[in-house]
Every structure is written in structure tokens, then in C-alpha cells.
């Protein structure tokens, strides 16, 4: 779906979230072993993810979900499609 220019893009993947924002995972845009890896680490549709911070060089990012913290590269975070959570600033 094309977005009109000028309107700010809605974050649609984990990579688009900024530190302090939360998102709920809608689906994983990847297959096979990579998907397995995400699922095994608890990143499944419906889970709420809070972005804690970025590493000093901008990559990877630290996320909080299910009560623990993971480090994930932005290129992989891109594969995790999310919906922006209504209330930000809360884990």
C-alpha cells in the first residue's frame, strides 16, 4: 500500500521503533531456520516488545519482552512486523 508523501510513516517493523516505544508483533516476515530462531527466543505474534536502547554505534538494539532482554540486529529486527502499542513509555 503506497503511503502519501508528507505523512509520517507508521512504524511497521521492530526496526522502526525508537527507544522507549513498544510494539506488538503481528507476524514474522521470514521463513525456515531464521523464523525458528525468533520463535525459540520468544518473539512470536502477539508478544509485546519494548525497545530499550540502541548500541552506541546504532546497531544492534536491546529489546525487552516476556520479562527478559535480548540484543537483536536491525537487519533482523526489520523482519519482525509490529503494530505500535497504544501506550508508549511502558514496558
Amino acid at each position, binding site marked *: 500500500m503506497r503511503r502519501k508523501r508528507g505523512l509520517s510513516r507508521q512504524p511497521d517493523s521492530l526496526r522502526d521503533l525508537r527507544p522507549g516505544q513498544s510494539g506488538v508483533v503481528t507476524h514474522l516476515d521470514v521463513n525456515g531456520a531464521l523464523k525458528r530462531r525468533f*520463535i*525459540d527466543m520468544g518473539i512470536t505474534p*502477539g508478544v509485546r516488545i519494548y525497545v530499550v536502547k540502541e*548500541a552506541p554505534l546504532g546497531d*544492534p538494539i536491546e529489546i525487552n519482552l516476556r520479562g527478559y532482554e535480548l540484543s*537483536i540486529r536491525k537487519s533482523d529486527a526489520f523482519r519482525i512486523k509490529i503494530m505500535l502499542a497504544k501506550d508508549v513509555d511502558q514496558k
Partner: protein
Amino acid sequence: MNKTAVIQPPKKTTLRKHFTAALLGNPNCGKTMLFNALTGSNQYVGNWPGVTVEKKIGRLQSNLEGELVDLPGIYSLSTYSIEERVSRDFILNENPDVIINIIDGTNIERNLYLTLQALEIGRPMIIVINMMDEVKKRGDTIFCDKLSGILGVPVIPISAKKGENIALVLKEVEQAAYARPIPPKILYDQSTYDAISRITQILAEEENHHNIPFRFYATKLLEDDSACITLLGLNSDQCFRINRIIEEYERESAFGDRQTMLSDARFCFIEQVVAKSVKRKYQQGEMTLSDKIDRIVTNRWLAYPIFFTILFLMFMLTFQTVGAFLQDVLQTLFDNVLSPLLTSFLLSVNAPDWTQGLLVDGILNGVGTVVSFVPLIALLFFCLSIMEDSGYMARAAFIMDKLFSKLGLSGQSFIPMIMGFGCSVPAIMSARTMPSEKDRRLTILLTPFMSCGAKLPVYGLFAAAFFPEYQGYVIFGMYLIGMVVAVLSGLLLSRITFRGDTMPFVMELPPYRLPSLRGTCRLTWDKAKDFLIRAGTIIFAMSIVLWFLQAFNFHLQMVTDNSQSMLALIGACIAPVFIPLGFGTWQATVSVLSGFVAKEAVVSTMAVLYAGQAGGSNALVAGVQAAFTPASAFAMMVFVLLCAPCMAACATIKREMNSWKWALFTYAYQIGAAYIVSLLVYRICLLLF
């Protein structure tokens, strides 16, 4: 139609007394501490066959004869990574009598994901909840009886660090080992449950599938686990029926794909379980102490200064202060005490000359070489262990990852490489903790390019002889060349040899914990012992061989003139290889070969060969100036920098790679890279100067 079952029925336990337990759990949940507590000092460390994953077996401290196998820390029983495959194969094929599943009480939800899969296998199991001391500190309560009732297995709360309840664990293990396996009581949602049951029925049709965990395989098939499909040897009709069941299942949910649905079912069940058996004091959203520490430690501006300070302190401790002191002590012990003692003893019994050579120069020297590495290894691993157990190591990987991802590695490669600047041996040993085998192998290959401390005297000598005004720059230049070659090699090899199965870099950042002194000392001791036994024997043997080669000529007579020895003649044969590099003399070749013993030996050999009888550093410099040109000196420095490391490191490489194929590839690559770069350097210098 394939009727023969590929999976064998489980082995029967022959003796009632001897049983095997497997320790299964996530990384970072204190598994090692529990393993040590349950086995005491009766441990054996090796590798799982053919892979770089460490295997630990220990004897249980109990009245009955029990063996405990430490499985690698994993998050799930997929076949995704080597660790998972090793663990899963062990449980399914070797049939341990009881599985001890250790979970982290502060992180139950994620840990239970693995627990459920293990329960589905149906082998007797006990659950041990570790870190109960932290759970109590947080004010949370875990109702172990309730949890036990829901999951159908004993649940024991412990604190491995404090040693609480370990005896109870042993008791439960013994009881469970002889108990009958009970069917798992996991209640998924109806459609998942139906799908699993129907697939299980199909699997159970084969007559020769006895005592095989159908339920487990059914869930794995539902998850689209490809390894399973081939392993079970199902015929096409069965596959067709199973696929139909799975497709129906997928249609019933909005998710629409089997992997997601099954894991969602699992997490739903876990949420129910936790809701019934865990009472939390605080909401999960609040900032913990770890978060507060991280605000500083991974802060954009403070992260790198803090990191490099910590590294600097580690190096100071290991190579300057304590480490240097211990090394001096050992050196004095060998040179000034043991060596003369042995010599005088041999003289007093009128032993022939060659025995003195063999015992003092060969054996004692060999032992001395091995032992001299121990302080380095002990101190470095002491520091590393603290960094790992405290949780800082994960943060270090976090901040260094971006730089390493370009090379096809991850941030976790940083620590081994940085240690390589000190000594390759512990650096290579520390690569063991990295999660992916590909990363491990590539890191082990690249680490020796980080110029180790022993090579420094070589640069110092040549720099003093040929580039006296620019000594600092030259030496720094060598380090730089090493790093550049490592980077280029990483880029090259990650595209060619180490291609494929790029894991997404998803790494856990465990909460900060105070490392236990006992655990750290234990690990340090284990590593030092491991080195002494494994690499030590090889180094020792090699020292004797090399002494022999340089003390005797081909007629097996002892020689006083070095140039007549076997080593010299071998050097003379190889020397022509180095002519294009500018240092094709037998003395230079022998010096380089002696670097195989220890890189420090290069200078001492050169001292013997070039300074002649007069000796002294001036004579050495003069001798070197006469024998080399600036260009060839530079080329030789580069060759020593890049070529395969000393035999201690080579032995360690073989040990960690756990495969001759990879070890030889590593040596070949390094020697090849050394030759090519050295050649280029020499030719370019000739052209320019």
C-alpha cells in the same frame, strides 16, 4: 515403501545400579554451578564428536552409581544449531534415565518453553528452579507444589550459588531414575491437542516403533521440523495423511502457519501455568537494578571508555603485574633452580652428555615451556569468567557487534581477538563460549593474526637494527598489518568457506549478577588443568623432538656446531622457499622454524646463529644488519607476524576445532597468507626503495 524404522528402540539399562542423567537448561541459568555442585571434582571435559561444542561428564555424588552429562545451554529442542542438535540427539538416542531440567526462577516463562519440549519426550524428568535467592529478593513466590502438579514432575527450588537444597536434588534424581516414565500432562488448546494426537496415532502404526517418544515427534512434525521427517522413515502415505492434518490445523487459526501456531499454543499454556503457580510482587515493567547499571555501561558515550578500561585492567593484571610476576617466578624456578640441580645431579652420576641434553634441554625445557603458559591462562580466564558470570560479556558483545557483523562474525568474537594481542592460547580457548560453530571456527582462525606478545621481541630486534628512528611506528605498523589481514581474511572467508546458515544475531542480555568466587576459581582451575593435560602433552612432545633435531646430526651424533644439526639441514632444504621473500638463508629459515616452538625462540635462535660465539645484543644487531636488508627484514617480520602460531597455539587450535580437517586448513591458510603478504611486502619495498 520403507518399512524399516530408522530410529532404534531405546537401549535397556543393563545394571540397575548405573544410571545416566542429563542436565538440560537455558544458557545463563547457573547450569555449570549446579553441575559442579552435583558432581564435585569428578569431571571429564571433552568435545562432542566432530563438533566444537564442549562435553562435560561427571560422576554424581550419591550412593548409587550415576553419571551426569552436561548438555549445552539451549533455548529449544529444534535442530537449528549444533548445540540443539547435540542435546536433542543425546536425549533421543542415548536415552538418559533421567533429565534434570534447570530453569531460572527469575525468568520462568522463557525457560518453560524448553521444559515443555523436554516433557513431551516423556523420559523421567525433574525440574530444578535455580536462583531462588534472587526470586526471594524480588519478593516473588513460586509455588513448586502447584507447578509440580500441573506439569506432572517433581519441582525443586534451589540456589546453586548458595548450595541450598542440592542434597534434595540428588535424592530426587535417584528416585526419578528408576521411576516409570509418565505421559506428559500438557494441555494445549483443543485444535493443537487434536492435531498432535492424530499425528501420534499415525506414527504409532509402525509395529517396530517401541518406546519411541511419538508425542515429541508429533509436535516436531507439526512444527515442520525437517530433520524429523527423514529420521522417522515415514512412507509417502503417512506423510500425506500427516500433511493433511497439519493443513487442516493451519486453516483453523488466523496465524495460518504451523510453527507460529504451535509456539503460540506453548506460550499460552505457559502463561496459564505461571499465572497459577507464580506470585509476583512487582509488575514486570519496572526498571531493575540491571537496567540502571546498563544506563551507564551501554551508554552511548561511556560504553567504549568503560569497556577499554576494563580490557586495559585485564591486560595489566595478566601481562604486567601479577602475570609477569608469576611468569618470572616460574622462569627463575626452572632456569636457576631446577636446571642447575638436574645438571649437577647428572654430572654427579657421570651420566653421558646426551642424557644431560635430553633431560635438561629437552624435557625440562619442554615442561618449562608448558608451565610458563599457565599463569597467563589462569589469570585471563579468571578475568573472563568474572566478566561472563557478571553478565558484562554480553554487553561487550552488544557494543562491539556492529563492527564485527561486517566480517561475518558477531560481537562475541571481540573478546577472543582482543586476548590474541596478549597470547593466542587462551584467546582460542575462550572462543568456546561463542554460540555458533561457524563463528567459533572463523574466530579461531583469525585470532592468531592479532600479533601476540611473544612476537614483540622479533619486531623490536629488526626495528632497532634497520629502522632505529621509527621503531615505535614500525612496531605499531606490524600490529596494524595483523589487524588488516584479519579483517580482509574475515571478509574473504565469510563469503567463501564459512558461508551459509547465517544466524540472526539474537543474544540474551542476562541480568547483572555477582559472580561467585568459588565458581570463578573453579573455572580458572578447570581451564588451566585442561590446558596442561591437552595442549601440554603435545607441546612437551614437540619440545623434545625439536631439541633432538637441533642437537644431533643425521648420523645421530651430538653436535656442538649448530650448523651441522638436522634442524639446520632441514632449514637449508626449506630455505629456497624463502628466497623470493628476501630471507632465503638457512639461518633465517631455522629461526622462523624455531618460532614454531615459541615465538620468543625466534630471537634467541637468531642470537645463537647470528651473534656467534661473542654473543650480546650488539653483536646480534650487527649480525642481523649484515645478513638482511631493510626490505627483507620487513618481509621477515611480516612472515613471523602472520604465519601459523607457536605449537601451543596450534595444539589449542586442533583441540578447539575438534577436527584435523579444520585445524590443517587453519594452519595452511595462515602460512599461505603469511607467504603471500610477505612476498608482496618484499617486492613492493624493492620497487619503491
